[in-house]
């Protein structure tokens, strides 16, 4: 049913498109008006824009229809289906207009559709993998492409001389020119086809990297031979050839340098954009596009420029920018890149339906196909065989087959073909046709057969693995070990260079390009740790929801209590913004504030502001265009909410089963407080300091892991969030309840002694009745311990009047 609707929608759009197109051709004469027109037909004002928008919409609708049914896309890659949709659309337009009004023009392609795809590739490039295999990639890109071009051109010329192609007006130079434009493996096509096949990463990166870097060679070859064709055969002497070779280096390195310069600029920019986080993501796109255009302006390799821009800036951008901005960049880039790719493929299909360009020459076309295929295999196998002798882990034969088979030609070749000058090259149309046929052959046929081939040959696939912490640590350790062994054995190897680069980067680049606050957080192991924690939290939530543990939420008093808990134990921005703050908590805040005055300077106004501010927030949500912090807090609130729910689930579970101790929440304060913490305390696991996203669940089981040193009041000084306004009502783990790992508000479950693991200190004063525990737990709101057999924490200020027994609260 849904498919039917979509199809209908598609048809309507198509009809609209055709209608619009016919209208477009009709001119609009400005006749003098005789009376005031209420509504006028203003097509001519916005015809171009309308058509552009309409075409984008139509292309994306094609994609929608194609992706509606995964059973088809499993066998035929999406790109092939898009081309077919292009055929259909082209046919309809041809039927309506009797000529092909729309085709993929080089300008649109090279300046509006390609840059974002390349920027996306560069930004999401796996850097480590890329640079590890850079040698292989470069060899394939440069030498492989030159070989492809030369061999194709010369073979075709040979065949022409031999008479296989009949009567064609193409000289040797033109053959070479044709060879150069056909030689390049296309990144768009490679991405589109390999995307669905998931081969192992080394294989993918070599093919993909080659497709990106060969642009340097393609541009040079194309321009060189184009110039040669213009100059004519007679004027080519050694000087020109030398110039050609020099131009390769200039174009390739120049393009890369432009890209690197823009990458550095982006990194520097993002370092300073803290105050305009709203439009921060936009900078990446604008600068990326500028790098493309600048290289193009200087006739350098634009693709290389954009690629290296993305490759360089990704690390610093991700470190400098706020998390939401990073996500924005990631998703926006994907939208642009994928959208452009769709449009490219559809138009590749449309452009074919044009009678004007079709010139058929069986010999030429078939021979081109054959030679491209064969020479690709020869080139890849030969080069890789040589490379394998220098590789630590040689690439297997099967992988080489896929590498050769993956040499897909795409829109870049077509774009270059259309750029040919028909005055100099009489057979331009033949070349365009051949290019189109080659593109269709590679994208459609090779695309369809790629997956079966990969399966049949049992190519090693990409492994989707989760990196465990131990793995990550050990990987790092391996790196260090290898460097050390290289030092000891006195030889300079890969790792030497890598560590040298790392030192250079740490010393010079990171201080320059990264924000100081971001620099502190730079650590892979910690990052993995952080990500794993976040994942855990989400998993527990889903699990909790599935088992229906949201029951307690519906219980009113529970909510209240929970809320209070949150307010008391949370720092800024963690309140559930759903319900108004109960007045009870304010009172309690007042009390606790008084109580804690000795320990730290508490700002009562701040406290009130904090709460009032929060309650208003829920209404502001969604209206402000510039204050995104609201949304972030909402997310954090949800996270804390989920975390607490999960906690309850665990304690419920363990209460029922009495099996394993529930998990403690061990949270980590922000970095600024870390230093303070470190200096003040030794090893204390139980820092209940809250920060927005850093928290972790650990199996609090053994007392052995706990340090007996107990958090003192001075601890609380460190529980400030980065914003500086602390929740003074929060009382950290002064009580062994925390060690007992049962969230006090759920402490009605009996304290099975097997579940608790008190520290040495707490063992001295173990609360041995549920009432006591509960009372103490609830007394988190107060800073005093009413427990007379309290642990000897002398820094505790004298207790206020204790609140009434907990029964009223729960």
């Amino acid at each position, binding site marked *: 049913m849904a498919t039917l609707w979509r199809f209908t929608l598609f048809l309507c759009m198509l009809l609209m498109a055709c209608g619009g197109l016919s209208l477009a051709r009709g001119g609009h004469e400005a006749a003098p008006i005789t009376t005031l027109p209420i509504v006028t037909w203003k097509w001519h004002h916005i015809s171009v824009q309308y058509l552009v928008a309409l075409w984008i919409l139509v292309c994306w609708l094609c994609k929608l229809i194609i992706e509606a049914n995964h059973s088809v896309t499993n066998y035929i890659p999406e790109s092939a289906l898009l081309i077919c949709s292009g055929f259909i659309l082209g046919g309809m337009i041809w039927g309506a207009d009797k000529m092909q009004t729309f085709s993929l023009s080089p300008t649109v392609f090279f300046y509006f559709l390609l840059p974002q795809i390349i920027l996306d590739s560069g930004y999401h490039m796996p850097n480590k993998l890329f640079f590890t295999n850079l040698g292989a990639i470069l060899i394939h890109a440069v030498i492989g492409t030159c070989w492809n071009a030369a061999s194709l051109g010369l073979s075709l010329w040979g065949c022409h001389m031999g008479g296989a192609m009949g009567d064609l007006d193409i000289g040797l130079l033109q053959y070479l020119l044709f060879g150069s434009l056909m030689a390049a493996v296309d990144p768009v096509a490679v991405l589109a086809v390999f995307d669905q096949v998931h081969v192992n990463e080394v294989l993918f990166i070599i093919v993909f990297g080659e497709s990106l870097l060969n642009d340097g060679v393609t541009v040079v070859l194309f321009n060189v031979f184009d110039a040669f064709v213009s100059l004519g055969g007679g004027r080519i002497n050694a000087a020109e050839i030398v110039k050609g070779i020099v131009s390769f280096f200039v174009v390739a390195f120049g393009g890369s340098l432009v890209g690197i310069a823009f990458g550095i600029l982006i990194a520097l920019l993002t370092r300073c954009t803290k105050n305009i986080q709203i439009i921060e993501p936009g900078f990446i796109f604008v600068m990326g596009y500028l790098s493309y255009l600048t290289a193009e302006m200087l006739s350098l390799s634009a693709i290389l420029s954009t690629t290296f821009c993305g490759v360089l800036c990704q690390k610093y951008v991700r470190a400098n920018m706020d998390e939401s901005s990073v996500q924005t960049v990631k998703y926006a880039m994907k939208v642009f890149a994928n959208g452009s790719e769709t449009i490219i493929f559809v138009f590749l299909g449309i452009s074919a339906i044009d009678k004007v360009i079709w010139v058929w020459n069986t010999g030429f076309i078939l021979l081109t196909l054959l030679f491209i295929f064969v020479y690709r295999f020869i080139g890849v196998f030969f080069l890789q065989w040589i490379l394998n002798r220098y590789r630590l*882990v040689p690439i297997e034969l099967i992988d080489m087959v896929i590498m050769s088979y993956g040499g897909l030609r795409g829109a870049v070749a077509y774009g270059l073909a259309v750029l040919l000058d028909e005055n100099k090259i009489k057979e331009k149309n033949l070349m365009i046709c051949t290019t189109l046929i080659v593109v269709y052959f590679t994208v459609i046929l090779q695309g369809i057969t790629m997956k079966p081939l990969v399966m049949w040959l049992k190519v090693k696939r990409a492994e989707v693995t989760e990196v465990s*912490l131990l793995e990550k640590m*050990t990987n790092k350790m391996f790196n260090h070990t*290898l*460097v*050390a*062994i290289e030092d000891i054995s006195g030889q300079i*190897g890969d790792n030497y260079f890598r560590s040298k680069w790392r030192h250079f980067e740490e010393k010079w680049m990171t201080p320059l390009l990264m924000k100081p606050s971001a620099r502190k957080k730079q650590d892979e192991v910690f990052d993995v740790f952080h990500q*794993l924690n976040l994942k855990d939290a989400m998993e527990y939530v889903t699990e909790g929801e599935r088992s229906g543990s949201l029951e307690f939420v519906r219980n009113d008093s529970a909510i209240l209590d929970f809320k209070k808990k949150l307010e008391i134990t949370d720092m800024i921005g963690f309140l559930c913004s759903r319900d108004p703050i109960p007045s009870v908590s304010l009172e309690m805040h007042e009390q606790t504030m008084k109580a804690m005055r000795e320990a730290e300077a508490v700002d009562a106004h701040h406290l009130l502001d904090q709460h009032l501010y929060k309650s208003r927030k829920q209404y502001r949500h969604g209206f402000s265009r510039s204050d995104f912090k609201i949304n972030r807090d909402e997310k954090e609130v949800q996270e804390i909410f989920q975390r607490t729910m999960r906690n309850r689930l665990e304690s419920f579970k363990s209460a029922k089963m009495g099996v394993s101790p529930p998990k403690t929440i061990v949270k980590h304060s922000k970095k600024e407080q870390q230093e303070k913490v470190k200096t003040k305390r030794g090893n204390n696991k139980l820092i209940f300091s809250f920060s927005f996203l850093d928290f972790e669940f650990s199996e609090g089981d053994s007392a052995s892991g706990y340090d007996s040193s107990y958090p003192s009041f001075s601890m609380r000084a460190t529980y400030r969030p980065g914003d500086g306004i602390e929740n003074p009502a929060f009382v950290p783990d002064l009580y062994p309840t925390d060690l007992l790992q049962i969230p006090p508000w759920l402490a009605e479950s009996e304290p099975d002694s097997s579940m608790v693991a008190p520290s040495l200190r707490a063992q001295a004063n173990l609360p041995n009745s549920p009432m006591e525990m509960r009372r103490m737990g609830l007394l988190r709101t107060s800073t005093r311990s009413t427990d007379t057999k309290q642990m000897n924490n002398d820094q505790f200020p004298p207790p206020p009047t204790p609140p009434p027994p907990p029964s009223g609260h729960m």
Partner: protein
Amino acid sequence: MGSSSSSRNKIPNAQELMDQTGFSSAHLLRLYDRFECLDRDNRGYLSPDDFEAVGGLAMNPIGGRIIDAFFSSGQDTVDFSSFVRILAHFRPTDRNRNKEGTQQELPNSRTRKLKFAFQLYDLDRDGKISREELLQVLRAMLGLQVTEEQLQSIAERAIQEADLDKDDAISFDEFKKSLEKVDIDTKMSIGFLK
């Protein structure tokens, strides 16, 4: 040709070493030269200060551990054959060898490489990586940006993930299991030792 065979005579048990480690004679010679270079006082063995004289090791976070790895338990000197045997761990694995049991004995088999790595963690050689040992490694590798509590949590979590028999320490088998997806060959091999 003549000089190489006479140099090979310099090396004690050259043939035996070659068989046990899989190094070629050219490699062995190179390593012997390096050994002599490191052995400044020409004592015929290396001591810790010889290793420490190597420049880069001071800047390596686990440099000390690597040096310790060369000195098997108790001894404080390293002779050439031990030197070579340790370095043999880092040879890339030969893929074409038949697996008639010879593979397992070579120092550069996957198990042996993992064992080497394991011993880098397990300093007291009790066969288990305890939380404290893990912490020490973390402290060494993560530096000052990370606080003590975070280190503890990371160590805690790492053990949690890898520890299958819940004895709060990582045994060699658990270590092996948690690294089964890692391509040890690439990660623990040095090309020129091939």
